[in-house]
């Protein structure tokens, strides 16, 4: 609630000056509050982006491990079947099936690590980079919010000082009026 009205004109220039200072400080306080609100909104937005990127990184790790492990599991089973089948053949020598199992299994094993690099590691690194960028934006917004908050507190302190000076001036005027009446 702004107790000072534009429509009132003051005979005392000091009172008018105090009025102008208070209006200016109130306007600045509103501006600081808006800057603080904007910084907080940007902070929230950056935090949401960072958390989303971290979730994407987690999904990449799980997906990459699934594919890597799946290829290794399938390849190992095929290779193992081919090797054991070869070992138990009484007549010796390999067959097309056993050779295919061994070859296919080895190929699948060889693909396991590159598959993780493609589906897991690369997206994870990209997501973590996005998370870092969002974290940086959050830090900048946090600094802006701190600055706006400090500015607002300084403005409020100035308002308090101005009101204090105004009270002293009004008291002085009152005492002067009493003195005049007493000596009249």
């Amino acid at each position, binding site marked *: 609630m702004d107790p000072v009205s534009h429509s009132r004109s003051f005979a005392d220039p000091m009172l008018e000056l105090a009025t102008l200072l208070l209006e200016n400080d109130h306007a600045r306080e509103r501006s600081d509050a808006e800057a603080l609100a904007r910084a907080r909104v940007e902070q929230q937005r950056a935090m949401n982006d960072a*958390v989303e990127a971290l979730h994407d990184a987690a999904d990449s790790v799980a997906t990459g*491990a699934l594919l890597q*492990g799946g290829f290794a*599991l399938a390849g*190992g089973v095929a290779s193992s079947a081919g090797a054991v089948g070869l070992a138990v053949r009484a007549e010796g020598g390999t067959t097309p099936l056993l050779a295919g199992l061994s070859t296919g*299994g080895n190929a699948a094993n060889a693909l396991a690590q590159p598959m993780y690099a493609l589906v897991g590691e690369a997206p994870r690194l990209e997501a973590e980079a996005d998370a870092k960028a969002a974290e940086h934006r959050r830090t900048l917004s946090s600094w802006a919010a701190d600055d706006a908050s400090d500015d607002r507190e300084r403005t409020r302190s100035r308002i308090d000082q101005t009101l204090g000076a105004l*009270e002293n001036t009004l008291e002085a005027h009152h005492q002067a009026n009493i003195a005049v009446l007493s000596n009249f």
Partner: protein
Amino acid sequence: MNMLAPVMSGASPTLPETDPPPAESELSSDVATALLVAMLRSRGTQADIAQNDVEIAQERLDVARAKLERALERAREAGESAGFWGGIKAAFSGDVAALAGLVASAAAVVASGGTAAAVAAAVAAGMSVGARIAEEAGLDPTTCQVIAVAGAVGGLLAGNPEAAIGTASRVASVARGVQAGSLSLAGGAGVVEGHYRGRELHARAAGERAAFERDSFALDLEEALRRVERAIREAERVRSTLGEVVRSHGELELAVISRIGAT
């Protein structure tokens, strides 16, 4: 009046009691006094609203703290599970597969018939030593037996190279089967490990969000406490000014009456 200390201690803040405004019948009817009374009531309402905001912010802060603790607990549990399965994966893809591979390679060398018996004997001795080391390291006893048997067979073969080729070939195949089987088990363990690693990272991301909410609600609580403090301080100022105005009016009236009475 330091109202920010409860934010650090986590305790609920309490507000000091304030005196009620002077009754309207005690005041004169001029505009300034009426305006000051309205301001005083406004400050009181603002203090009530800010106090309500303090309570809301405190509740939200407590909820955010609990969410953070739960997220960190979930992350810790998932991390422990991932570590367990990671150990299994490392054991099967590391020691077991490597030793089985060593056996397979050595037996293949013997089976090719391209090396002297001395080399085969050295490989056999190395595999026997490896089996003892593997047993001491706590590997699966069956795996150790495979390696030990392969070492013993290699030792026998060293004494009869011509008959060694067929048997060494079978040993190599079995060892390759063991190696491939170990790698497949490692792959399976890797899938489970990856699942738990993903859960751990998801929980940590949730923890980041909860930590941000905790810090944000802590700031809201500080802001609400400042508003309460400010509203009370301004109400005190308005009350003081109102009292001064009433006193000034009284003194002025007395001075005028005294002056009139003196004439």
